[in-house]
């Protein structure tokens, strides 16, 4: 199991996720494939609080991918929804949690606030 993945879920379990809405509740299981098999991570979200466990329990939505691609999402290099369109991740269950995944992963690297971008253009 990878350190990056451990850190990502550890962070979620300790600090939650501020971009989740108060009303968000449900369970998402990540099935991450690697050379030696599959590791399972279960997020139980209750009113935006996140609990993390390694249970292979039923969930509202199950997301499946390999650890290498999962780490790209952790680094903000790939967006979950386009990844789903390309089949880099697949889902079983409720699609609304696929849409909500964006809130769990970091934003793209180097994205600019419109004001910052506007300053940049003025100086150009």
């Amino acid at each position, binding site marked *: 199991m990878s350190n990056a993945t451990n850190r990502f879920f550890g962070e979620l379990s300790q600090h939650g996720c501020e971009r989740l809405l108060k009303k968000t509740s449900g369970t998402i299981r990540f099935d991450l494939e690697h050379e030696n098999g599959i590791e399972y991570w279960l997020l139980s979200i209750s009113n935006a609080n996140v609990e993390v466990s390694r249970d292979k329990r039923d969930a*509202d939505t199950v997301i499946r991918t390999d650890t290498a691609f999962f780490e790209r999402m952790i680094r903000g290099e790939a967006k979950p929804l386009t990844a789903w369109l390309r089949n880099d991740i697949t889902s079983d269950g409720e699609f609304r949690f696929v*849409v909500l995944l964006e809130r769990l992963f970091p934003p793209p690297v180097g994205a600019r606030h419109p004001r910052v971008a506007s300053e940049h253009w003025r100086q150009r």
Partner: protein
Amino acid sequence: MKGDQVRILDGNIFVLSDSSGDIEASPSSPAGYFSFDTRFLSLWRLSVNGERLHPLAIDDERFYEVRFFLVPGAPTQYLDAKVSVIRERAIEASFEERLTVLNHDSEPTELTVRVEADSDFAPLHALRQPRQPVGRLYTRVEDGFLRLGYVREKFRRETLISSTEPAQVDQDGLTYHIRVGPHDNWSTTLRVHGLVLRPDRTDVRDHLTRRRTRTKLQLQQDLDRWLAMAPRLTCDWEPLTTTYQRSLGDLAALRHSTLALPDDPLPAAGLPWDATITGRGSIFTSLQALPVAPELAAGTLRTLALSQGTELDDFRDEEPGKILREFRYGEATAFEEKPQSPYYGGADTTPLFVILLDEYERWTGDIARVRELEDEARAALRWIDEYGDIMGDGYVWYRRRNEQTGVENQCWKESWNAISFRDGRLPAPLRATCELQGYAYDAKLRGARLAREFWNDAAYAERLEREATELKTRFNRDFWVEDGEYYALALDGDGNQVDALTSNMGHLLWSGILEPSRAKKVAEHLVGPRLFSGWGVRTLAKGEGRYNPLGHQIGTVWPFDNSFIAWGLRRYGFTDEAAMIAEGILDAAEYFQGRLPEAFAGYDREQTRHPVEYPTASSPQAWSTGAPFLLLRAMLGLEPYGDDLIVVPEVPGRFGRTELLDIPGRWGRVDAVGNVTVDVGNSQ
């Protein structure tokens, strides 16, 4: 569609063919079987004994099914045809076609029936250009099936064709060698499945908890129920009832169910090409349709809230709190050649979201929805100040960060040349159009009402009201064009007034940001000879540098635009002017059998005597479909007030008695009867 194209559809699944039912796609003819923003059939050609078939008649009364009555050979042979073919086609989650071959002779006959099939799996946006696929196309003949496929990395689409009667299947199609007895017939049903496959070769949609598929019977029952639930219109002027009925039927067809919230349909922007989740089109149409179908607003609000922006993303022009512009499922989106996953490049959608939420509650009293969407509405209001206000001066601005594939003008007039100075010059790309300020003002005031009444936050309400008042003062100072006595189209990044005379300022009326003392001048301009064509208000006034009666958004008349202008005029008490616009647009609708096009040419009515349609791809276009509902609202003076619906009719004299019965809302059902009339002096 144009010419002899025939189509059927259910949501974002549709079939476009020629009048014999054949599909022969080319860059100049975007025919096909489409689903999930992908073409699954680009060739579908029927022949009998090697001869093509020709239509005698087409029955396409319902939007999800069609029947073609065909005979083989050239038109001269029609009269004594010994064989004819009925081709019955429907969308029932997949594309289904029943072929019936009839022998009219007293002798038995042996025939070869062939269906040729192929697919290029082109993404929806790339149909008009010749295209080299990035991935690999393949064809497989399987036991009784023909499988066409496309694969690119893990992305896979397949078309699976099967038949109820045994067929001889080859790489290019299916063949039947049949014998039909005297005065007998033969038939088979072909099923074409468009599959959106995962690497394990199962369809992604089969893995969703709640997937919405509907049979033909369910579609019919649903349509009947929808029409029965809608208010009934009676009017002395027959064409208005025709337009109303047509628009209701079209609105039913436009309802689009998403994968995430299949039970909350929202209006798609247009059919067939814009059968997708959009921000602007869905919000405007839901607002227009509140008097007839308030539940559409609920679907729109929920769906857009779910996809609200949560982070900064330059490629998608996304910011936290922003409401999307468009979502697509196709290959170009998947591989990030296009940003619609979703794309957020619109500066109007976010304040409009708050406006719709408030207006929806006023009509329905659905407090639960207002509480459910509190966080999203607050995030939208925050977006206005934090991300919309790029210059930090209290206005809403736009400038795309995605300079390759993003949208240049992020207001409803998206055309590259729509925002110009009087002399035709284009401003630098950082722009603040006037109607955006109106929407922001309205959103703040409506947000304040929601905060006070439902979110238990009086302090926030006061802050929003204070900001709205300041915005109004600032706006009336900076946007008023002194020498022309109207409001500037926009400000540019240097604070200059972009001073073309346009329809945009018509939206300031329904937003309420206009200084009442100046409203009379604005109303005069809107129905004056430079802006008003006789049918409606032009997007850009005659005499301006870029004016062109056939220019997409620089001179054409847009029914949607006009419906909001008429509503605003009514709000400010300009009854005659509102009636004049309503009458002009509804008059025009008669020329299109009740289905208003997205736009028509800005020629003077006296000059052409006929509204000249501006060619656009989709029809119906949702916000044109919605226009008659909002015009009716404006003419009948429908306004929710507490738990009542106020009705203050001012109907053009020519329409006579106009009654809208059983208007649904928090009041139960209410009738609006308009027999008070105004003479608009517009009958030419």
